[in-house]
Each structure stands twice: as structure tokens, then as C-alpha cells.
């Protein structure tokens, strides 16, 4: 049984045939249990729309979405689906519901009927995980942009879902905050086996995933490990995407005729590959 299975899904916002553009056009994809999948694609290609199908916020007009074999169109499964797949929306302001930070984080588990004592510990743990524990009694709407985003993530963590979908969770974070959120995401995935779907425009974050899916105009057009996907520099550029900076540096040097391995992804790999090439130079002295 897969965590999420998307079968030939069609979707458009305006249900009248022909009146508006098709947003999802025959999407086929699966997310396996325990997997960490990154979803990439240019602005407006349908990522958020697809993500909202994963927990029945949107329902397909054609095809089917199954969450642990439960069809999202089946009303009876709605509650189970929502508690299985937690969602951090693209814009945290839309997600903040309460005025006080800790009440906001407690909102999700309260809705799921979790016991008050358990909620207390979950809220504290979730706030610590995102580094916002000291702000627990602050007013949510007065936080800085990045602080709001972390509270939104804590809200979903406190629900302890089996699968977490994060729609651009680090867009407003500083480099340390970005690293902390990505560390948190990786830890939840590796240590607690939580399935992760990450939507991002930061290529260096996608590198951390087990598998990368690339969308273009309502279709999944590329799929593979980060190394497979990011070694296709020109193809990605044609899809309005890019590659991580270390990959780009190797690519521009390769174009100058320098021999470097394909699919270099990280700072360390890049430095190592360059040092190997430079050794000939130093050896020559």
C-alpha cells in the first residue's frame, strides 16, 4: 500500500468544461511510505493544486487520489485522510488561526480530539522543534515573516501525521532557519519514518530528497533521484528551473572543456572534484 497514489488526475478550478484552463492534466505519481519526495516546477505549474489533492482539500474532476488506499472523494474517509496527511500551506498567514502562538499550534490536535494533557506536550515539543518555544505566549500576527512560518510548521508537527506535505516552508526563512527546518524535516523522515512531500524553489533543498518530481503545465515531466534529475542542467533550465550552485559551477567549467564528474550536488562534492582536477596542476610543480 502506497502512502499517496495519484491516478490520471484531471483538475481545473472552474468546473465548466472549456471555460478555464486545465490545471492538472493527467497526473500519475505515487509517494511511498517513509519516502521523502521533492516536488519542483515553475510558478503556476500546479504544485500547490496537486498538493491540496493529497489531503482532500481539493477533489479531482477526473481520475483518483488514494491516501493509504482511501479514496479522497469518499466523505467517510475525510477525517482519516486529514489526520494521516498534514499540510503546511504556502502562505503561513492563511494558516494562523489563533491570536496566541501556542493556541495556534494546539488548534490542529484539538480538532483531532487529542487529550488536553497530550496536546500540552505535543505543542511544547513542536515549538521546540522549530525553535519558537520562547515565543509560545506571543501574538501570532505580530511575529516576523520567518517566525510565522515556523509556527505554521509547528502546528502541523503537533498533529503527528504519518505524512507531511510542506508547500514552500522555507521561503521566508534566514539561512540558519532554512537549515533548521530542513534538518527537522530530514530528522522526522529518517528517525520517525514520517513520509515527506516538499514543494520548493530552492534546488539545494531538493537535493536532500530521496526522489525528485518535476512538473510542467499540469504534468509530471521528470522523475528520479536528485543526482539523475540535476545532471540534466539544460533540460531543467528549459523548464524554468535551475540546479544548485555547486552543480552550476561544474557545468560552466565543463562547458570550457574541463573534465569534471556529472551530477555533482553539494559544496563538498564540488570542492573535492575541483581539487582532484587541480592536483595535476600542483603535481606538475
Amino acid at each position, binding site marked *: 500500500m502506497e502512502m499517496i497514489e495519484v491516478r490520471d488526475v484531471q483538475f481545473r*478550478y472552474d468546473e465548466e468544461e472549456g471555460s478555464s484552463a486545465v490545471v492538472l492534466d493527467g497526473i500519475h505519481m505515487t509517494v511511498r511510505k517513509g519516502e521523502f519526495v521533492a516536488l519542483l*516546477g*515553475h*510558478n*503556476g505549474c500546479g504544485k*500547490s493544486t496537486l498538493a491540496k489533492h493529497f489531503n482532500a482539500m481539493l477533489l479531482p474532476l477526473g481520475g483518483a487520489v488514494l491516501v493509504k488506499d482511501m479514496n479522497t472523494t469518499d466523505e467517510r474517509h475525510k477525517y482519516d485522510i486529514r489526520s494521516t496527511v498534514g499540510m503546511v500551506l*504556502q*502562505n503561513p*498567514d492563511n494558516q494562523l488561526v489563533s491570536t496566541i502562538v501556542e493556541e495556534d499550534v494546539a488548534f490542529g490536535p484539538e480538532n483531532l480530539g487529542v487529550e488536553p494533557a497530550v496536546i500540552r506536550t505535543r505543542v511544547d515539543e513542536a515549538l521546540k522543534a522549530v525553535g519558537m518555544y520562547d515565543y509560545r505566549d*506571543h*501574538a501570532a500576527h*505580530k*511575529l*516576523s*515573516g*520567518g*517566525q510565522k512560518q515556523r509556527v505554521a510548521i509547528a502546528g502541523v508537527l503537533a498533529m503527528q501525521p504519518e505524512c507531511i506535505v510542506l508547500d*514552500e516552508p522555507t*521561503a*521566508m*526563512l*534566514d*539561512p*540558519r*532557519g*532554512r537549515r533548521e527546518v530542513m534538518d527537522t524535516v530530514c530528522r522526522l523522515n529518517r528517525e520517525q519514518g514520517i513520509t515527506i512531500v516538499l514543494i520548493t*524553489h530552492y*534546488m*539545494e533543498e531538493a537535493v536532500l530528497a530521496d526522489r525528485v518530481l518535476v512538473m510542467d503545465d499540469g504534468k509530471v515531466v521528470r522523475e528520479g533521484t536528485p543526482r539523475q534529475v540535476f545532471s540534466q542542467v539544460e533540460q531543467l*533550465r528549459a523548464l*524554468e*528551473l*535551475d540546479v*544548485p*550552485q*555547486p552543480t*552550476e*559551477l561544474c557545468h*560552466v*567549467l565543463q562547458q*570550457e*572543456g*574541463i573534465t569534471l564528474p556529472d551530477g555533482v550536488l553539494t*559544496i*563538498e562534492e*564540488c*570542492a573535492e572534484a*575541483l*581539487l582532484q*582536477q*587541480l592536483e*595535476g*596542476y*600542483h603535481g*606538475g610543480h
Partner: protein
Amino acid sequence: MAVIETKHCTVRYSVGTPFEREALTDLSVSIEEGDFVGIIGHTGSGKSTFVQLLNGLLKPTSGTILLNGKDIWEHLKEIRQVRFQVGMVFQYPEHQLFEETVYKDIAFGPRNMGLSENEIRDRVYRAASMVGLKEELLEKSPFDLSGGEKRRAAIAGVMAMQPRVLILDEPTAGLDPRGRNQLLQQIRAYKDENNCTVLLVSHSMEDVARVADHVLVLNSGTIAMQGTTASVFSRCDELENMGLSVPAVTKIMAQLRRAGVPIPDAVYTVEQARQALLPLLKGGADRAV
């Protein structure tokens, strides 16, 4: 000449409540006309607070702000003029969208400035193309756009006013990589053509490195560093201690330098790295033969 100066500005939020918080402390900064300044700082360091002071959206608890040498709060009625001269793209600018169509939203600022319908039209199309907003989206409701499309619409609205000082608070957050590159190039071109001043707040060290001439670093409400882009990004350890970073290429170059490769100091873009490495790599190939 300084176009904007802050003198001993302090900002306190929620004064008199248990949540009273000093967001900026005794900040004195001077921004030169025609400069392209990148502003970086950890989350909550006061960047948005700082830039909101500069166009009179926020009044400092104490201190003064000078625009072209004049105190912007001296005559309350003139604050509207300040906002035409100092254009601001907010963080989460999509919250400012409110008109029925994207076209009307972008046209709002120019219309307020009393421009002719033709001029307005011209500016809307120019601004939309600058930010890479597809023309077919202009008649859509701004609420029915994707996250990145909303962001572009909001930025276009400010660009259409063609302010002398353009402030952008995290404009590229949520844009796809091509959109990011395009927008940064367009902002740079806009600045160079009009010789105006640009302040860019960003959490992307790579973006700041690519376009800014000077960088201002805020840390817990005070100025921690200020200088040329090269000089600021050469202080990697200090930046990391403040929750910041340097571009990935700068880190790669630092590793090579530690291994004894003679790499010059100021490398913070891929292009600079290419230029620094090619002679070394090509030299190596020739010698190996």
C-alpha cells in the same frame, strides 16, 4: 550624496504591554544616491521594520529620517509624497492585492499619481513584462493566481510607479529560479537606466551577491556590518554566527583555498568562480600534457 539617512532611530513595538519589544536600537545609516544596497539579517533582526521607516510607513519611537536632507516627519501632510518617491514592495506583498483584476491592481499606484490613461496603460504593460507576468493573467482576479504569480503582480504594482528609491522586502521568495533571475536582472536594469536607488532585503545570499554593490547586515536591531559586497561576504564565520551565510560558491572557494589553491578573496558569484578557476584548471591541463 545621501538620498536617505536615519539618525539614531529606535523602534519599540507594543510599548507598555508585556510584549514590548525594541526592534531597532539607535540606528544611524546613510544610503547614497544611485547605490544598490542588499540588506541581510536573521529572522526578526529588524529588516522589515527598518525599511518601513524609510518610506514613512512606520514612525520611529525616537530619531529622525532624512529624505534628500529633509526630515520626512516634519510636515505630516507631505508623507504621501514620500511614499511616491520611496516605493516599497512589502514582504508578502500579495496581501496588498485587492482590485478586481490584476490590471487594475498594477494600475492603482500610477492612477493615484494622476497619470493619463495612456501612460497608465503603458506602465502596466511595461511593469508586467519586467516581472515576467503573462499578459493573459492581467484580466484575472488577483486572488485566483498561484503564489508566485501573485508575488509578481504585487511587485509590478510598485515598479509601475517608477519611484526614485525602490525598496523590495524579500521580492524573490517564492519565485521559481528563472523568475528570480529575471526579476533580479530587471531590477538591476531598472536601477542602471534610471539611476535610482535600490534597497533589497533578502535571505538569499546568492541573490544579494549577484546584484548588490553594498551590503548592510542587521543583527538584533543594530547594524553588524556595512560595506562592499566583497568585504561583507569575506566574513563568513561572523555571518554564520548571526544565522546568515555566504553564497555556496564562496564556500567552495574557501575549501579550495584551505587546501592551498591560490584563489583570490572576493569570489561570490558563479561567474567570478569560473574566472578564478579557469586559468588554474586550464594551466593544469596544459602542464599535464
